[in-house]
């Protein structure tokens, strides 16, 4: 099957400088200075062990950032902090200019527009592929609204579109629990697409995918950037090379280096602790 990047997400009019620069207002979120995510001096410790240590990181509006680093560097913990699952002991975490992530609950953060794909694919196994996408879809998510919810034509079209994009149109009525590992990865990415967050956090999205699937995912992510901001944790260097604007290298809970992939690969310290091994 041919790759079909999400058509209406590819905005033909995007400007090349929208990556982390300039003035943008994104769907009600205040991103005056072009920064969608601000993390300053973040510290997280588990029983004295510092999983994150004075970590400072900025992600620009529309940017596609890759985070690399050895196992245990704190990449997943970083996502836990951003999504409210783990509270930092120190530091500031802002979504846009005004939303203090350390004060919001997980649900509020998700509603504010941060979506997340987990390292271990988590889909709702008892529900069908279609129902999984429907559940994630951006809409009023209160109890009352859910009791009365019916899909509008527009919403149905959107679900169809995403089904095609993630190549699961034929499996729409299958319970998600019966999908292969790679298909579950795609379903979870599809759920992020219907959720329409402004910032997408993706934890090792191509783990367990075939080369063709990886290539397709790279294409998909590139098409999402600009209109969305993405933060992708990945080990696969080929994949990182294919997609990243900027790369951040994490080591022992700290930012070791930042820049283009070529730059960080040339960095002495990085070679020492990570790439050289």
């Amino acid at each position, binding site marked *: 099957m041919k790759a079909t990047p999400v058509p209406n997400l590819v905005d033909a009019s995007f400007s090349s400088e929208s990556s982390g620069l300039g003035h943008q207002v994104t769907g009600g979120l205040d991103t005056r200075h072009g920064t969608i995510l601000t993390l300053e001096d973040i510290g997280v410790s588990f029983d004295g062990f510092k999983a994150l240590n004075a970590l400072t990181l900025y992600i620009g509006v529309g940017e596609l950032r890759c985070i690399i680093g050895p196992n245990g560097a704190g990449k997943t913990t970083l996502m836990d902090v951003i*999504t409210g*699952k783990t509270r930092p002991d120190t530091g500031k975490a802002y979504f846009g200019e005004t939303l203090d992530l350390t004060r919001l*609950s*997980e*649900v509020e953060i*998700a*509603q504010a527009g941060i*979506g*997340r794909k*987990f390292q271990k694919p*988590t*889909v*709702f*196994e*008892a*529900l069908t592929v279609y*129902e999984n996408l*429907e*559940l*994630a879809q951006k809409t009023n*998510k*209160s*109890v009352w609204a*859910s*009791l*009365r*919810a019916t899909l509008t034509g527009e919403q149905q079209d959107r679900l169809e579109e995403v089904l095609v994009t993630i190549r699961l149109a034929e499996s729409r009525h299958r*319970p998600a*629990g019966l999908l292969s590992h790679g298909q579950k990865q795609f379903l979870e990415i599809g*759920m992020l697409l219907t*959720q329409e967050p402004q910032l997408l956090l993706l934890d090792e999205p191509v783990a367990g995918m075939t080369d063709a699937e990886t290539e397709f995912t790279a294409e998909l992510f590139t098409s999402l950037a600009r209109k969305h901001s993405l933060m992708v944790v990945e080990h696969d260097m080929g994949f990182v090379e294919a997609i990243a604007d900027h790369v951040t290298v994490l080591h022992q809970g700290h930012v070791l280096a930042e820049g283009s992939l070529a730059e960080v690969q040339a960095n002495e310290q990085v070679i020492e602790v990570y790439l050289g091994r």
Partner: protein
Amino acid sequence: MNQPLTLTAARTVGPRWTLGIAAVALAILIALPLLSLLPNDHPLQVSAYTLTLVGKILCYAIVALALDLVWGYAGLLSLGHGVFFALGGYAMGMYLMRQASGEGIPAFMTFLSWTEIPWFWAGTQHFLWALCLVVLAPGLLAFVFGFFAFRSRIKGVYFSIMTQALTFAGMLLFFRNETGFGGNNGFTGFTTLLGFPIAAPGMRALLFLLTVALLVASLLLGWQLARSKFGRILTAIRDAENRVMFCGYDPRGFKLFVWTLSAVICGLAGALYVPQVGIINPSEMAPTNSIEAAIWVALGGRGTLIGPVLGAGIVNGAKSWFTVAFPEYWLFFLGLLFIVVTLFLPKGVIGLIRKDKET
């Protein structure tokens, strides 16, 4: 997996058959009370004993259905649903006691040498207020309990143990004479309901029909919920609560809604149980009662709604036969039944029907 029966059975037995069986079952349930009105010497007459027994089992079936809503769909195993059933029953019982004592105060209060009716009995001589209490007492208790339990993210075994403790505490409280609900004797000796004799054949038939109506209404409501997006979110919460939060839903509200609804349905069942059976006492809140309800659900098939209704029917039908034939073996049989179901029928009786048709 956990689709309502409409889907499950329709796929296996065929929609026409499913509808046919349901129609026959409903026709029998409606015919029973009518046949009970026949003269005593008529061959088709249904005895008051049979009608009361079936009516009682129908009330239990409603409890099983209510429990399935929270356990089968939202994954909250309650081992304390007896307390909601009993509260609904007590609320109705208060009204019946007031009917029985007329202008005076209920007899058990006179035995305690109370001269005045306690404040929480105020208004219970009015049928409409009693009906409000039937809904409010279990509903408020469930709401408050659920609010704190879900806010503290209490789940799984801890939640089950807390519900068990809740019903046990309720039982101990109601055992005390000073609590004002007749102590261990509870309420009995009812005479009239809305001025009509409560044991009259017409009244029995009416109460039975109301129970059938409540069961049918609860089933329809349950199916409606299970088929709605709300139902799918409950299933999602059951299987991956964290993921649901990251999708932007607050699981607490969803759990609280279905939990309170379930308690209210139980309360209504209790309110219909008391006038039919003629007694309510704290043993309805005994922990074992609530555990038995969980067995009905497991036996019938979790998350199928109709399964638990059948489960309640099968277990209680067997129970009433056993307690006449071999009373001392009932608990052994129940235990055995539970083990067999857990080992061989993980999807309950409904799963059995489905499997047979597939092979």
